[in-house]
């Protein structure tokens, strides 16, 4: 299911899905995804887990899987499916069973036990599934008559996993990690507990949705929840520090050799030191080796041509973190703190592979995961460059052959076009999402 999502969504971002597939093929893809749906709710990770042909007590080894369910629903949206065959009520019921008492989500339910360890990626996928199936509003969902997940417990769990340096992890005291930080921020958006509203241009589908008249019960429920709870707990205790942590993931250390050098020489020279800046002067050199390498360093102009993102402090840059960090900053309304051009050059000139796609590090063979996230990151950077009134191709040395990418929804990690199809589906289901009317999402 993961592979299916990355492949289909990448084609969509490149505007290659419709020209390169027939309607019959797309319909068959949709059927394949539905064949992975579990009758009691959710989707399985792959048909190879399918035990549905066997009747007796084996269903426990053929469980629905939280990430697979997110990938399945997102891929269906991209393929233009109307989600009519989704077992919405069952999936929402199953989703509640995937939440632990401490608020976190697991991956699967086996033998009545929630498996999959602590991992905010599951929280992200679960809140996205909830968002697709019933919008942001809290409490019992009037359209499916299903109860809600425990939103407060989830927020509490995410807050506890904040680290001393402003990043986030998957569990208290684990090291801050950009993937987990993004997942937590995006999950807070999906459950409408983000510290501040995000401003973005509402898409066409969303504008049409916003014009729908509010039903009486929606108005009542909004007012009463405000009266009861006052301000709800928001995620992120120090949003500015989180922005600071995300911005600090920028690094000029983009190949593994740079990193390995630190083992031999702990002095601060541009070669041995991560994130050296051109204005940092090393006053003294504990070793002569350090002094020699300082003299041989390339000019700062050259050194900052390519800038990538790492996933943790003092690690080498990696293609996928251009998405995790870039999207995190976008969702924090802070993409302006990053100058897009050196990052785009890093992706296009360093980790993009000659046969197509992206690898993890410069020179690495491309893989589906890094290729998709590389594209997703480029799409966000294109949007950021446009917002900063920069020509999209400014500073890019290579003649660019690739067409413009579709704009990405940083929260759902699909094209805004694909996400917008949700509004018509919600309309059909009768889902009203008061909060989305402000233009966020």
């Amino acid at each position: 299911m993961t592979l299916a999502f990355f492949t289909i969504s990448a084609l969509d971002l490149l505007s290659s899905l419709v020209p390169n597939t027939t309607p019959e093929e797309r319909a068959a893809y949709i059927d394949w995804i539905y064949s992975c749906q579990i009758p009691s709710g959710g989707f399985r990770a792959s048909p190879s887990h399918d035990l549905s042909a066997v009747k007796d007590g084996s269903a426990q080894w053929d469980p629905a899987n939280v990430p697979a369910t997110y990938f399945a629903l997102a891929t269906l949206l991209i393929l233009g499916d109307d989600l009519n065959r989704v077992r919405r009520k069952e999936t929402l019921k199953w989703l509640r069973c995937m939440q632990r008492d401490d608020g976190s989500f697991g991956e699967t339910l086996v033998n009545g036990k929630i498996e999959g360890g602590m991992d905010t990626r599951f929280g992200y996928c679960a809140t996205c599934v909830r968002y697709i199936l019933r919008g942001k509003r809290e409490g019992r969902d009037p359209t499916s008559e299903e109860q809600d997940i425990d939103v407060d417990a989830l927020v509490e769990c995410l807050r506890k996993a904040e680290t001393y340096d402003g990043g986030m992890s998957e569990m208290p005291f684990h090291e801050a990690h950009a993937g987990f930080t993004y997942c937590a921020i995006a999950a807070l958006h999906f459950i409408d507990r983000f510290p501040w509203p995000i401003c973005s241009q509402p898409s066409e589908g969303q504008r049409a949705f916003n014009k729908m008249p509010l039903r009486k019960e929606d108005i009542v429920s909004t007012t009463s929840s405000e009266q009861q709870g006052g301000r709800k707990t928001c995620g992120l205790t120090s949003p500015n520090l989180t922005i600071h942590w995300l911005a600090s993931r920028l690094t000029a250390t983009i190949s593994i050799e740079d990193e390995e050098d630190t083992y031999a020489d702990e002095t601060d020279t541009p070669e041995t030191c991560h994130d050296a800046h051109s204005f940092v002067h090393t006053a003294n050199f504990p070793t002569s080796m350090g002094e020699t390498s300082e003299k041989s360093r390339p000019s700062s102009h050259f050194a900052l041509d390519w800038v990538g993102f790492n996933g943790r402090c003092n690690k080498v840059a990696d293609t996928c973190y251009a998405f995790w960090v870039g999207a995190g900053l976008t969702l924090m309304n802070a993409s302006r703190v990053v100058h897009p051009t050196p990052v785009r050059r890093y992706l296009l000139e360093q980790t993009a592979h000659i046969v197509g796609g992206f690898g993890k590090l410069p020179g690495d063979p491309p893989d589906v995961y890094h290729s998709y996230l590389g594209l997703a990151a480029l799409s966000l950077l294109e949007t950021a460059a446009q917002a900063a009134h920069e020509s999209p191709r400014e500073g890019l040395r290579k003649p660019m052959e690739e067409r413009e990418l579709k704009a990405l929804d940083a929260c759902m990690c699909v094209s805004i076009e694909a996400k917008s199809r949700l509004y018509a589906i919600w309309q059909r289901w009768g889902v009203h999402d008061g909060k989305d009317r402000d233009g966020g999402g």
Partner: protein
Amino acid sequence: MGKHDDDPAWSDITPLPTSEGGPNPLAAIAYTEEYEDTMSYLRAVMASNGFSPRVLDLTEDLIDMNPAHYTVWLYRAQCLFALNSDLHVELERLNETALAHQKNYQIWHHRNLIVDKLDKCEGEQGFVQRMFVKDAKNYHVWCYRQWLVKRFGLWEKGELDFTEEMLREDIRNNSAWNHWWFVVNGREAEGVAGVTDPDSRAREINFTKDAIAKAPQNQSPWNYLRGIARKSGISLAHLKSFAEQHASLDRPGAVKSSFALDLLADILGKRRVATSKLVGRMICWR
């Protein structure tokens, strides 16, 4: 014909082959014939919830071929417990798998289940150290180390010495810095104060400042220092003179650390604007 089809030990089992879900499977994975064959037998066994030594062998084969299949790991753990297998033997086997597959999460989850069941952690710290020789920043291994410390109460059994040694090897190892924070502050729920205790705080601040003096352009200790201040409610202004030692605003040519400059920007106020401007400047610097 797969290798199990001719094996009399498996003659009572009808394999359940994979269905890839219709004529247009999206991203059908090309598994090897051997994997497909073995998996079809395991699927058949799982369908009847069978636990036996031969099933253990089957899961072992599958894990060797594809260590990322999470249901196979879960089934193996269930099987081991159901058969009362010798868990020490299982740990030995896991050592090899873990060393061969550094990035695999399932192995560590499985190890966690086994060691928890054993209720003993002899040899575990040593094994973790062997893993760190290969990759001193392996996320799963550091998480597992935290679990060991918590589960078996190893807080004062050489954990700080071990972490200090890791930092001596690489002062930029942020995973080790994070572990240090965990060992110092991880027992507040049990009533053991961390940096909120003045003595402990003084020791931590000195330790961090020494590390910064060794390599000023190192983000980890600067973050650590800010973390101490935030956690214990001390104003960052107390760090002003220290930051100025590494980034003098009067002599722009003598900036030894961009993180010192960053800290000064925060101290000098207009926090949000100043920080983002500064970050912007660092990135655009040409």
